[in-house]
């Protein structure tokens, strides 16, 4: 099919919307303070307090003006009036740059305000938050012209209300397929009014300096002819989040995140692809590595990539102790614990408590008894390092709380927002969202603590002792992981003298929730902060972890052909 139309702005495909949302999701935020007031005010008094709090902020005022109007007047024949209306605006200022081979390749500035409107019809027990009823997104003007702002808010609200009407009908129809749940879980939890208007954040970056740094760092490719690809990127974000709802909540908070990622890849002589991509993410600009430090990190990365080319391949499977350094353990904790402590409500009609692997583990053992896991977004620093997962009020206007998710190995609490799950009827301040997307249960600052912490050297000795007892020549220590928890830097630790040998081409087999429950035998005293980008940025803090038994085997990856001709010779 061929089409001809005027070069119209609206023509762009939905796919692109996906891209911008994805791009926005990849942005980051960091913490600020909040205060709670008037927790149990009557509705009218609540809105009076809300207006008072918003005074002087043109965006909050415009949001409240439309909120009042929608609350009072939104009503369509045969559709109930909304019982809850929420506006969340994420004002994103984002600077990104990427260099390859010593030259800047991309450089972007984004400044955008994204509105998300949620209109709920029904009541707290059962409402329209289903399918398209989960809200509408829109772009808002960048200045605070009240009419222009309100016009977009008005349109998005109209769309959200109509969608909610349809969604409620669809949901009620869908529920007819299932037998009636004798103990239904509410759709939405009540939350006290929250008023917390905090200062906004903005970016102050020496852009030229950073571009130069990225170019300098990637120029190192000239010194490493065996490395095929070298890139470096930086991304700096300031996100101001504004929230108002019909319960009288008004919050504003500003956060910054700064991240730099190095990346390089090559092939071994046999064609195996090898890569490394160390990243640095902080909430305070001054904590980023300096240019010289970054050059050092890049050299270290390139040297390990070169070393990997020469490293022997893991040919035969191994079952025995494997020590995960804190940097690798952070990834294991994120994927095997972090994802499973979220109280994500399952699909309509599904009986489980959550969608995670710990859904039926409430009050059951999920980790060895020496480990506890707490998610504490109120923590701002850890050992002097900023935590991007820290926040004072979540994306639903609920005060952040420290939640003991796993106590001495037992599943004690799920992290939830305002969508209740079985046995957990109110938010514990973990409803978070990326710009323009709907909130869901999310990690903040997840901390793994051991009651029997040991020095990493002791853990390494333990590996040596265990393999010696088992009559093995060596055990394994993994320093850092890549995607899918595959090892990027994996070392054999030899029993006879403790020396380490870098190997390549390995994967872990059966690294799953059973392994962390039964085979984790010790943890280090070396907790490491790992700040992570995502819809909402999170922090994982985990020490080294020692598995008594884990399988290491050869990765089933193809060996790609080497370049058909050599790289161009350098001119300068």
């Amino acid at each position, binding site marked *: 099919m*061929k*089409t001809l139309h005027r070069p119209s702005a609206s023509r762009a495909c939905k796919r692109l919307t996906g891209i911008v949302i994805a791009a926005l999701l990849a942005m980051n935020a960091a913490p600020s303070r909040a205060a709670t007031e008037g927790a149990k005010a009557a509705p009218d008094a609540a809105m009076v307090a809300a207006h008072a709090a918003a005074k002087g902020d043109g965006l909050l005022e415009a949001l409240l003006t439309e909120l009042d109007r929608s609350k009072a*007047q939104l009503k369509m024949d045969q559709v109930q009036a909304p019982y809850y209306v929420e506006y969340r605006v994420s004002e994103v200022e984002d600077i990104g740059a990427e260099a390859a081979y010593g*030259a800047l390749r991309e450089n972007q500035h984004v400044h955008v305000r994204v509105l998300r409107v949620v209109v709920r019809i029904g009541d707290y027990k059962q409402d329209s938050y289903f399918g398209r009823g989960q809200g509408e997104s829109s772009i808002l003007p960048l200045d605070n012209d*009240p009419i222009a702002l309100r016009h977009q808010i008005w349109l998005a609200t109209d769309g959200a209300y109509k969608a909610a009407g349809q969604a409620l009908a669809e949901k009620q129809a869908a529920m007819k397929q299932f037998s009636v749940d004798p103990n239904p879980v509410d759709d939405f939890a009540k939350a006290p009014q929250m008023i917390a208007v905090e200062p906004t954040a903005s970016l102050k970056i020496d852009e030229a300096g950073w571009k130069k740094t990225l170019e300098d760092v990637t120029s190192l490719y000239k010194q490493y002819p065996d490395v095929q690809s070298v890139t470096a990127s930086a991304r700096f974000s300031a996100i101001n989040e504004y929230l108002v709802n019909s319960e009288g909540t008004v919050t504003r908070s500003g956060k910054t995140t700064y991240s730099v990622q190095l990346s390089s890849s090559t092939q071994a002589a046999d064609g195996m692809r090898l890569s490394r991509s160390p990243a640095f993410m902080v909430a305070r600009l001054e904590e980023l590595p300096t240019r010289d430090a970054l050059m050092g990190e890049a050299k270290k990365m390139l040297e390990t990539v070169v070393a990997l080319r020469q490293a022997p391949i893991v040919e035969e499977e191994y079952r025995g102790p494997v020590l995960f350094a804190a940097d690798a353990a952070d990834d294991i904790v994120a994927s095997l614990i972090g994802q499973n402590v979220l109280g994500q409500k399952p699909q309509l009609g599904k009986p489980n408590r959550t969608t995670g692997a710990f859904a039926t583990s409430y009050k059951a053992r999920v980790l060895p008894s020496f480990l506890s896991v707490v998610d504490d977004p109120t923590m701002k620093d850890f050992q002097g390092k900023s935590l991007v997962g820290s926040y004072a009020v979540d994306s639903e206007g609920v005060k952040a709380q420290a939640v003991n998710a796993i106590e001495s190995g037992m599943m004690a609490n799920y992290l939830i927002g305002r969508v209740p799950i079985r046995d957990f009827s109110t938010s514990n301040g973990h409803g978070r969202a990326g710009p323009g997307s709907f909130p869901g249960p999310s990690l903040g600052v997840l901390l793994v603590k051991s009651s029997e912490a040991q020095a990493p050297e002791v853990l390494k000795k333990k590996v040596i002792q265990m393999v010696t007892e088992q009559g093995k020549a060596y055990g394994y220590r993994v320093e850092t992981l890549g995607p899918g928890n595959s090892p990027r830097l994996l070392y054999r630790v030899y029993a006879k003298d403790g020396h380490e040998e870098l190997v390549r081409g390995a994967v872990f087999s059966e690294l799953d929730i059973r392994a962390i429950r039964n085979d984790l035998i010790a943890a280090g005293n070396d907790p490491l902060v790992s700040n992570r980008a995502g819809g909402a940025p999170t922090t994982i803090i985990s020490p080294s972890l020692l598995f008594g038994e884990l399988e290491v085997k050869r990765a089933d990856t193809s060996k790609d052909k080497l370049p058909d001709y050599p790289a161009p010779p350098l001119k*300068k």
Partner: protein
Amino acid sequence: MKISESSAKRGNLCFREKEFLRGAACWILVAQLAGLPIASAAGDKFAPPAAPASAASDPVLKAMQNEITRASAELGKTEQPPYYLSYTVYDQDFVVLVGAYGSLLTNTTAQRRFADVNMRVGVPELDNTHGQSRPSGVNSGSLPLGNDADAIARVLWELTDREYKRAVPSLLNVRTNTAVRAEEEDKSPDFSKEKPQTHIGEVEAAAPFERAAWEGEIKRLSGVFRKYPEVYYATVMIQVQRSNSRMVSSEGSAIVSPSASTRLIMEAQTRAEDGMDLLRVETFQAPAASGLPSEAELTGKIEKMAADLSALRKAPVAEPYDGPAVLSGRAAAVFFHEVLGHRLEGHRQRDEEEGQTFTKKIGQEVLPKFLSVIDDPTTHEMAGMKLAGAYDYDNEGEPAQRVEVIKNGVLENFLMSRMPIKNFGQSNGHGRNQPGRMPTGRQGNLIVTSTKTVPEAEMRQKLMDEVKKQGKPYGLYFDDIQGGFTLTTRALPQAFQVLPVLVYKVYADGRPDELVRGVDIVGTPLAALTRILTTGDQPRVFNGVCGAESGQVPVAAVAPSMLFSEMEVQKRAHEHERPPLLPPPGFEDAGAAKDAQTKAEVKP
């Protein structure tokens, strides 16, 4: 079209989006901008990309030439050396401002550079790009922005090596498929032999873009819509683009083509009580922002758009109809682009999934004798308007040519890329593509001329005469149009649709003309083309963006108004969502609408 079903879906999507605009459109619009690999410079300077006057002083061109020479030599030593290799580097710098109701929604400066590596292995008679394997002929990626020759060469090497690793297995597939499948009807080679071209284009001198002033103007223009509570979705966008494309090939071509364009797009939408979305779009195009209409003129257009929408909201929905009709020049131009132009694209004549409506009609009469059609990318301006489909060299590095496709109603030629077809072995400079895609024969400026004309002012009378002659109660006058699409494959019905915006019923009994809404022109191409009775005498220009297999390319279509003895229209499919429930901000009180003008004033 490679996969008819999926392309049909894509087409439908583009069509449907018009219907589903709503507030989401501004979201989509920003998405469109943010989805690009945007690079923006700090500050307000907006300098054209460096396009030095000679190859010797252009470090990027030099790096490309060095690397293509080296790649050709190195890959020449392999078992399966490429017989053709080309690099095209596209530089694009642009500013995009989007305003809505008096504020800016988007304010972006972007800069990007990317490279297409085209490679052919095998022999011109049969290579890796044959048939369904055509996409294996190109690989693309983003390139460093500056003049660092080492970095540029390195990325070109990466892209070339990756492309080689796709092209070679693809050739093997092509050879196997050719061996096992029935012989193709058109046994033309896959690539034509052409003379290498060298051309270093001049940078057009243009006044710098006055960004701050335009920010104000876009705000003010978009603020004009505040006066109209029924226009609940409206944007004004300006896109100022300076681009440069550099191409080098293993055949020795070296072409540098800088260009500049500025587009101003005004969109406004309302919804009728029955849920039908009604859209008006006005676009303006000039090399530089200084060539756009004045603010006063644009304000006038906005007021006309709002008035049209207001009238359309109240207009009755048209009933299906088959009878005499007049297409205005712009409507006729889109009609020819869809119905005729796409079917004259060279590659469609050999693709066995295509309908091949005109493949065997060379030398035969396909239009009334008084009509001729050319496609001429070398014409830059007509009827006082810049033509969007003008270019000097096509994407395969061939010089643009004026092609007489239909002369006095007789089919003479096709729009050719370097993909030959039976009896047409050479390119005629119509190989076009969007960066990242393989080129195919495409339209540039499709121009329809007529020798049987009446003055434009008499066309309405001619329509009434025809209506009376046929004994119909009324005829249709298609004034403005938003676009169209067509299907050309065998798997689906040969059909086209043109999407009119302003359509009037012209009554035989002398009643005043009546505006109607929700009309789509439908039909089959061969039948429709023979029903043209006469034309007006003023060519009118439709500038647009055309999407097909080789991506989005800017095109123009030019035609006079036309009287058809018979035109079939159908009811337009539309959503049934109600207009917004609450009045727009600024019109909260029912009575407020009248004194809204004072409220709606936009601060400068």
